[in-house]
């Protein structure tokens, strides 16, 4: 499989500007960045990976049942140990037989996942999602953004992967996160860091044996808006190509997702000769040369239409979390939760085998006819209309949602008439994500998105929440 047939990208709507950060700390320490993306309190690498991968699959009009492989790349998995690809296969409705791999450990993981898909030679979803964090007054901390990029690597498709190459050289200490730590640290020796980046990336590009000045989009690892240009200049890739291949100016450092988000952007811009270059500390770089001969459909939800104050941004990241909450959470045991994953992850509904009424969740006696003959599965498209709603503000949240509310403010709890493909609807309760002063009323239309619901027994639980259609990008 050496082609790319579709792409998807997701960057959170929330941004904090370089000026805001400079006001707080006296200066903004990263170059070439105007705004960085901030994940909402209930977003993380898994939810963003789902958002990007789902968009890629949909853009490619791909039947999820034909996908044979999933590669997930991130340096910030919500769990240090547990294979998150299993949950992603569930949320994306991939078949049981899918082979999965997780790439992690450095920001090179994204392109490593992509190169791995080329080598695997089978229909693969490759998704990289990241939300790096650094000390609040460090270069990395200032530059840190969040986002995800995904591509479908398949036998057919409008873009052909012509060649791949790598270069590895031991340069310890440039960018490190200790075990159990929340924040990544850079060594702060600029010349050493630049040398590691340059040697590995140019080393890999040189092995590709390409015409550097004919590259028209270069999706180069962008820990800031300066590094990619330096490397491009060193090998003769035009500045305009870098401009077309990086998103960092408006997103900040996307970690492992950086080259993939750039690639998706390059495909959207209909560039023909695309270079993808990923780099990770350690150090190592992998590069791919891609020729686009036909349109590659992409779906990008990347615009940042909400700007936050510094305090609001830090609250969302969890810096000012407030007092720990006692009182317990809603008691749904892990095994009980697992039984309901088709509903939580995919809105799996059912039609009564007796009277064909639509039910959600499809369990227990039919609410329409009382029969207990079970249900035939029906998947809902994930849109609906609000039938009843309330906005929950400070003091109104149950304990297990108190932290989320402290971090991201008011949200709504609604009963939504979910659409079915045949025109019928079925009611379901959904939390509605509200940002800033947004509100939601009976009659409004919503779509759904995967978010982190809560954590209990140390196990994070993910499910679908509603998003007002009016603000869906």
């Amino acid at each position, binding site marked *: 499989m050496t082609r790319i047939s579709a792409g998807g990208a997701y960057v959170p709507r929330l941004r904090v500007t370089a000026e805001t950060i400079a006001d707080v700390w006296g200066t903004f320490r990263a170059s070439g960045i105007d705004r960085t993306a901030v994940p909402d309190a209930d977003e993380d690498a898994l939810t963003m990976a789902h958002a990007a991968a789902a968009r890629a699959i949909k853009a490619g009009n791909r039947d999820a049942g034909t996908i044979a492989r999933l590669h997930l790349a991130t340096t910030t998995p919500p769990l240090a140990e547990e294979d998150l690809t299993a949950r992603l296969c569930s949320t994306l409705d991939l078949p049981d037989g899918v082979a999965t791999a997780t790439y992690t450990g450095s920001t090179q993981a994204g392109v490593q996942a992509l190169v791995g898909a080329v080598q695997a030679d089978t229909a693969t979803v490759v998704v990289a999602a990241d939300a790096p964090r650094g000390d609040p007054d460090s270069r990395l901390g200032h530059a840190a953004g969040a986002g995800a990029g995904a591509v479908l690597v398949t036998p057919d498709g409008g873009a052909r992967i012509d060649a791949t190459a790598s270069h590895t050289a031991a340069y310890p200490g440039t960018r490190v996160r200790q075990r159990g730590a929340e924040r990544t640290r850079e060594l702060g020796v600029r010349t050493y860091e630049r040398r590691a980046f340059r040697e590995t990336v140019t080393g890999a590009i040189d092995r590709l044996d390409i015409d550097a000045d004919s590259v028209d989009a270069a999706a180069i690892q962008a820990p800031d808006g300066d590094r990619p240009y330096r490397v491009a200049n060193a090998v003769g890739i035009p500045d305009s190509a870098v401009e077309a291949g990086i998103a960092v100016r408006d997103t900040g450092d996307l970690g492992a997702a950086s080259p993939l988000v750039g690639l998706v952007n390059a495909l959207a811009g209909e560039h023909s000769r695309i270079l993808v270059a990923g780099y990770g500390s350690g150090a190592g770089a992998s590069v791919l040369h891609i020729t686009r001969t036909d349109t590659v459909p992409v779906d990008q939800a990347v615009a940042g239409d909400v700007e936050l104050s510094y305090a609001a941004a830090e609250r969302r990241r969890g810096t000012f979390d407030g007092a720990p909450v006692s009182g*317990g959470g809603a008691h749904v045991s892990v095994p009980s939760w697992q039984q309901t994953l088709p509903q939580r992850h995919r809105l799996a509904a059912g039609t009564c085998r007796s009277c064909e009424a639509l039910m959600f*969740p499809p369990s227990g006696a039919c609410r329409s006819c009382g029969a207990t003959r079970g249900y035939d599965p029906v998947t809902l498209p994930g849109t609906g209309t609000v039938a009843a709603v*309330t906005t929950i*503000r400070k003091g109104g949240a149950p304990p297990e949602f*108190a932290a989320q509310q402290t971090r991201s403010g008011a949200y709504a709890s609604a009963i939504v008439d979910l659409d079915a493909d045949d025109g019928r609807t079925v009611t*379901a309760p959904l939390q509605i994500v509200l940002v800033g002063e947004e509100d939601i009323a009976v009659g409004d239309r919503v779509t759904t998105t995967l978010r982190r619901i809560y954590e209990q027994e140390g196990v994070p639980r993910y499910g679908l929440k509603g998003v007002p259609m009016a603000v869906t990008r």
Partner: protein
Amino acid sequence: MGEAYIVGAGQTPFGSFPDRSYRDLFDEATRQAIDSVPEEVDSGRIDEVVVGTLGVGGRQIGLPGPAVSEHAGIGGVPCTRVENACASSGYAVRQAVQAVRGGQADLVLAGGVEVMTDVSDDVARWWLGVSGETEWERLTGTTFAGVYAQMASAYAEEYDVDPSVLSEIAVKNHDHGAKNPNAQLGFTCTVEDAESAPVIADPLTLYHCCPTTDGAAAALVASDDVAAEVRNDPVQVTGVGAGTDSVGLFQRETFTGIPAADRAATRAFDEAGIEPRDVDVAEVHDCFTIAELFAYEDLGFCGRGEAPTLIAGEETTLAGQLPVNPSGGLKAKGHPIGATGAGQAVEVFKQLTGDAGERQVPNADRALTHNVGGSGGAAVVHVFEEVSL
């Protein structure tokens, strides 16, 4: 089938009592109930005890019925704890009535108790959420107030409602509660107070929500023979109706009323052989002010969408055509979850036996109690009539 009568009823003050135990409170309510019977009744005559309680704070989840009975000196007799969230002791009264009517017992103590204020806000909020549907509804991040607020949003969408009507209900119930020495929030308030209070779940403010409360209440339910022996003006239970519905709001057929309460009321009125307009005084379940609006419509006091008109016309104030919640309701009197249903029985007993002090509704002969569990997963309605024996 025999008849059942309330021959005595009593309650503790409702409020916050950090130095009282749940057993202690139940004991006091039992004493008050026994003391309210004109002829002396030995607690040894009580055949059975039915206790409603949710167990907020995790206290005595197993065998709370025997635990409080023993403490009140009524150990040894058949005893059970009934739980239907906020309708627990309403259902306890119903169960006592069933036992007496069915000839299984001659004198049954039906009561309820709850202690809620000795836990942190977070713990209290957790317990308030257990009576909603946990796996789906609660995990949208809603509290109890949120579910009723959702109903309010649907009601406002369907009927043209002046939002201040919710505050008018709070004003009315506080007015009544200010006349009730047992009320937790025995002070009056204004519409402005209610509207400017912090929003808990849009459109419900703090003043549209009942408080968390400690308290106990109990009623003595007697057979024909025992009733005739101990007083000449017992309160007959002429109608009982109860029903259930989906625990989660999202699976109900309507969001603008409580079908379980509607069903319960229909059955109660049928059995009593009366119409809603025959009721002289009612204690309804106003856990949130919107719930009182629904009560008027579910009970048939008016048609769908017309409840705001009753409020605007002041028809349900003490001076009105049909006083509702003369005690102050859950809003001002307080809502110790397991005790509320029995507390409603205590109030109507006082009203019908002329013992309601400043809150007395003149010439009250027939009364109704309406007790709802959760957002409407369970409901029980009793109709009472003062009789001479």
